[in-house]
């Protein structure tokens, strides 16, 4: 490629915002740590406490939330100029609920055991505040590509907290990881870790660790 052609291409790229500009990268990076939906915004905590007993269902849950978040953010972002303001919450709810119903159906067909373990919590993704929060706060006011990145960031931000919580709960609660026994047959299992109380403690410790490291504190 000649230098001339290269230069033209660079100009063409500069006219539009690059796909992974600094601003766009922040959309993905921020929710992973400094603006995490669970530990900083404290949203979606219900499912973080409920579905983290074992790693495998947790992974499916994270994937489901990521899927719903990405496609609802994309859909609402694309419709943002035609959605009537007065019924926007209902419309968002409809989009989210349809996507969740699809996820539920797919899980029932291809991951029957997991869908039974997750039971009502798949349906409860509809009420996950992270999703409605991102739709209201971001997708309604931004173009599809940034909305997509925002969804990826927040979905991964959700996963990045849930997976460690599930890791410690499965390890200490059942002495196994991903269903494989790691602490030996003689390990009795810790009942607290099996109950949501254990999740609350692990999540609390994670928040403590993160805030101590980032020096974050609530504004007065």
């Amino acid at each position, binding site marked *: 490629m000649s230098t001339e052609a290269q230069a033209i291409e660079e100009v063409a790229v500069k006219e539009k915002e690059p796909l992974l500009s600094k601003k766009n990268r922040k959309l993905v990076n921020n929710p992973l740590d400094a603006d995490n939906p669970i530990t900083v915004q404290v949203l979606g905590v219900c499912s973080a406490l*409920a579905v983290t007993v074992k790693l495998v269902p947790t992974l499916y849950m994270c994937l489901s939330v990521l899927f719903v978040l990405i496609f609802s953010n994309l859909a609402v972002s694309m419709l943002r100029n035609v959605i*009537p303001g007065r019924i926007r919450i*209902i419309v968002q709810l409809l*989009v989210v609920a349809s996507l969740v119903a699809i996820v539920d159906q797919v899980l029932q067909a291809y991951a029957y055991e997991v869908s039974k373990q997750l039971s009502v919590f798949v349906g409860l993704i509809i009420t996950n505040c992270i999703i409605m929060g991102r739709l209201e706060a971001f997708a309604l006011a931004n173009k599809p590509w940034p909305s997509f990145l925002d969804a990826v960031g927040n979905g991964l931000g959700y996963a990045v907290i849930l997976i460690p919580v599930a890791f410690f709960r499965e390890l200490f609660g059942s002495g196994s990881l991903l269903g494989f026994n790691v602490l030996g047959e003689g390990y009795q299992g810790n009942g607290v870790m099996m109950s949501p109380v254990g999740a609350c403690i692990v999540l609390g410790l994670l928040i403590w660790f993160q805030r101590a490291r980032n020096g974050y504190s609530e504004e007065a």
Partner: protein
Amino acid sequence: MSKLNKNSNGYIFGFAFLIIVVCASLLSTVSGALYEKQYQERELERKKFILKSALGSEVDEMEKPAIAELYDQRVKESVINSKGEVQEGIAVNTIDLKKEYKKLEKNGSLKAGQSINLPLYEVKDESGNATEYYVMPTYGFGLWDNIWGYLALQKDLNTVQGFVLDHKGETPGLGARITEDKVQQRYSGDKKIFEGSDLVAVRMMKGEGNDYASKPHEVDGMSGATLTADGVNAMMRNYLNLYLSFINSKKQ
């Protein structure tokens, strides 16, 4: 686009109508496309539960095709009514246990004028001739929603071989523990449903951690889930009563 008044009632109704049609058709398409696969999964689970109640938890370790094959080899399906008569021409997988359950009164007896279809699974021995276990599906109500189970009796039709339980919406960590092997195994072994010639069934007791080894009609309970256990007890008693005519006819 900007000429439209987005706050007019007409626009709002039109938009709502359109998006509902789009979402509804999307959902019905997905649901229709996945129906067959979901049905197969449910069928396989039914077969697995039946085998597990009779042959124990090693069925959990088996691959899906192996479970279906073992089921075809060992299990003979039939449908009976509460008088113990075989109902010809009805396939077990067309029976909706939930619908049949609705034919029962609150106290578990059959509503007047109703006849109930009861699936019966006979698990044959390795050679495939003699019946080794009788498996009876049961259905009932726990604390929040429906519960169901497969009760396997040994060929004396008195000793409980196993009881596999499942539920729709019991509390995770409490009532939902009826799905755990550890809880279900409390029924396996030496529990009897008859005391002399009286049907007394097996009851899950209140409290947990007690030893019921010497008591043939009681098993250890689940701490914090007494109401679910009550539901399990009622379910077992109700359905054993429905199967009683059949059981008595076989015992003679």
